[in-house]
């Protein structure tokens, strides 16, 4: 297992670094944010900057935030079953804002068939319940690192 917390405690972090910036959002009306917050903390502890937008975000708000924050990756958390409506809209809004190349990942209760469909629409990855945060971190590092 990878350690979740990097151990260079109290070392002054060089300012001249490009840190990975990840936007974590909860679209729709679902208020269960345990997963989103656990992931946000895990990404922070892996050295990333996480912009956390909170609950009830519309697709327009998410794309706008991704643009303003110059996010390297956008993560959505949905447990309400509304993913097949909400995720395509977020993708569409991101394309409209010229953010098509920014990877979008989705976490939550997503039936396997839907996960396949979402990936076909352009979602970079789908993470179900029980996914280790280390797996998410590794994916984000790979996907966000690939960005020009």
């Amino acid at each position: 297992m990878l350690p979740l917390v990097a151990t260079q405690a109290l070392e002054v972090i060089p300012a001249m670094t490009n840190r990975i910036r990840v936007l974590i959002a909860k679209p729709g009306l679902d208020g269960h944010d345990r997963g989103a917050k656990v992931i946000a903390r895990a990404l922070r502890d892996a050295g990333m900057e996480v912009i956390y937008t909170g609950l009830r975000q519309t697709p327009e708000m998410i794309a706008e935030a991704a643009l303003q924050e110059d996010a390297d990756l956008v993560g959505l958390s949905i447990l309400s079953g509304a993913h097949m409506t909400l995720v395509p809209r977020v993708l569409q809004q991101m394309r409209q804002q010229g953010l098509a190349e920014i990877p979008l990942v989705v976490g939550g209760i997503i039936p396997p068939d839907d996960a396949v469909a979402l990936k076909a629409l352009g979602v970079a990855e789908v993470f179900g319940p029980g996914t280790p945060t280390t797996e998410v971190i590794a994916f984000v590092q790979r996907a966000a690192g690939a960005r020009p």
Partner: protein
Amino acid sequence: MELAELIIAGDRRAIARGISLVESQAPAARELVAALYPHAGRAHIVGITGAPGVGKSTLVNALALDYRRRGARVGIVAVDPSSPFSGGAILGDRIRMRDLAGDPGVFVRSMASRGNLGGLARATVDAVTVLDAAGFETILVETVGAGQAEVEIAQAAHTVAVVQVPGMGDDIQAIKAGLLEIADVLVVNKGDQDGADQAVAVLEAMLSLAPPRVGPSGDAWTPPVLKAIATQGAGIAPLAQAIAEHAAYLERSGQGQQNDQARAARELHQAVREALWERFLAQAGSELAAAVQRVRDRQIDPYTAAEQLLRDAEP
């Protein structure tokens, strides 16, 4: 330079990329700042600072809404601390700024402090330059008023609003944090809570003891103490008014020009310091590491070692 042109034209994607670039402090960032610098300097920059939990983000949200009603375009830079352990950060200020979503006249950017004192101040100042050059007329810079870095950032603003809340004992947090001296406007937020009037009275009493602030023209500025309930938007128009009055005072009294002069000096001095440091590192980086070992082993004291290193590094 394409990016700078796009920023000056107000392209939002370019603004976002530009801020990332200056935040990284990569060499290209200097070129960008150089290209933008002549186009900046028009915005009124307002620093909003105060202890964690006083409602700064909510206040910024309400204030931005008020500016928008008057038609001014608003740029916001919200700074949160980085984790000293991982260097990562969770930036949550947007949660309280959801009322600003969908408004093309607003640009909100979250920034992490990235652990470096001077670097944070510079990155923030440069991010403000990007927004300024992009034509945002009012720029709100929100920081946690806890350390020297925040004071530095606040000093880069034209007007500093220090936010307080009542009911946290008899302590006035701003005084503890050394923020009273830099406050141009004081806000007691959550003004509907017990002790709000008392907090206002205490702050006013403290201010009456401070030496008067007199500008070059002889005009004086007494920081007003305002009550607000940011969650309800109450007291926000008077705050905007107070900020505008302070801006007018800066203009009228010549204090603004004096501040600009001091600010320019600070920025230039820092740039020189950093450039010298970088040059020194390039020339004597390996000797520096060796000298650190010797200081650690008490073979030499830091002052003498510094003298030696500088002498050796001289061209």
